[in-house]
């Protein structure tokens, strides 16, 4: 006997200001959330807004269902003459969009960089593992060259002393 657990119903928060809808996407955009996204966009398309904004500021993880939903929403919006823009897209999500052939520059408002809640709450627990100077190439090169010069001077001095 096969039993199927129904997918959890997800509702995406929508904010409408000056007749422009802003949809907040969740941290993980996978199957349930992808279905909710398509349903939400369907709802908004019926109202024929000029544009729709997708807020991905808290979306740090996306799978193939999520990508497919975003692509589908983009294409359908374009067909209906509705502009769709994404805000605050995480670099990992941008990479995923690039992999499927989308051009982020055309669909992402570039000046919307945000701080993710997950990143912000991790601040307290991050301890430095090494001094910052260890990661500086200039400092490392300076140290190496200075050491070689010092060794060279020492070698010359010892040589001249022996003679």
């Amino acid at each position, binding site marked *: 006997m096969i039993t199927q657990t129904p997918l959890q119903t997800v509702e995406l928060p929508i904010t409408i200001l000056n007749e*422009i809808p802003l949809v907040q996407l969740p941290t993980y955009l996978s199957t349930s959330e992808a279905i909710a996204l398509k349903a939400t966009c369907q709802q908004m398309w019926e109202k024929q807004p000029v544009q729709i904004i997708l807020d991905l500021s808290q979306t740090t993880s996306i799978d193939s269902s999520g990508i497919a939903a975003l692509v589908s929403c983009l294409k359908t919006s374009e067909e209906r003459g509705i502009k769709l823009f994404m805000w605050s897209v995480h670099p990992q999500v941008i990479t995923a969009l690039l992999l499927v052939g989308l051009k982020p520059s055309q669909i992402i*408002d570039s000046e919307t960089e945000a701080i993710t809640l997950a990143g912000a709450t991790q601040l307290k627990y991050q301890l430095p593992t090494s001094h910052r100077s260890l990661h500086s190439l200039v400092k490392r090169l300076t140290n190496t060259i200075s050491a070689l010069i010092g060794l060279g001077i020492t070698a010359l001095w010892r040589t001249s002393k022996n003679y």
Partner: protein
Amino acid sequence: MILVTVGTEKYPFNRLMSWIRVLIARGFIQEEIVVQYGSCTYYPSEVSAYSLLAHDQFQELIQRSRLIISHCGEGTILLLAASRKPYILVPRSQRFGEHVDDHQIELALALAQNRVPIALSPGDLVRFLTLPQWVCPTIVSTVALCQRLQNRFG
């Protein structure tokens, strides 16, 4: 009128300026904006901008404003708390070169626990604009603080 203020830090807060520009461009803000841009090297062309403001001038703008978008500086927060005008705080981030460390983010998270409006993204600004509210930024009462210090240091 919306007042945007970034304080007098030596680090620019161009990211907030960019958010304001995007909100204007997308139509979310359709009213007068006055910006105190401090050390920012950029501000939107559609605003009235001042690098620094005298105290009286700043107070007058606060009184004239419908709501205030501010960086999460301690001094500014005290001024906003006294104003009783709706405000939202946008913390500066070390990652974007906006401050020497992330103490503003830590402060913002602490204030958020007391329902003070905080914006980590431009989407948060839009959500605040639909329902602006004034919240007193009290983290701990004076009595509770004194008790904690007494318990800690005897």
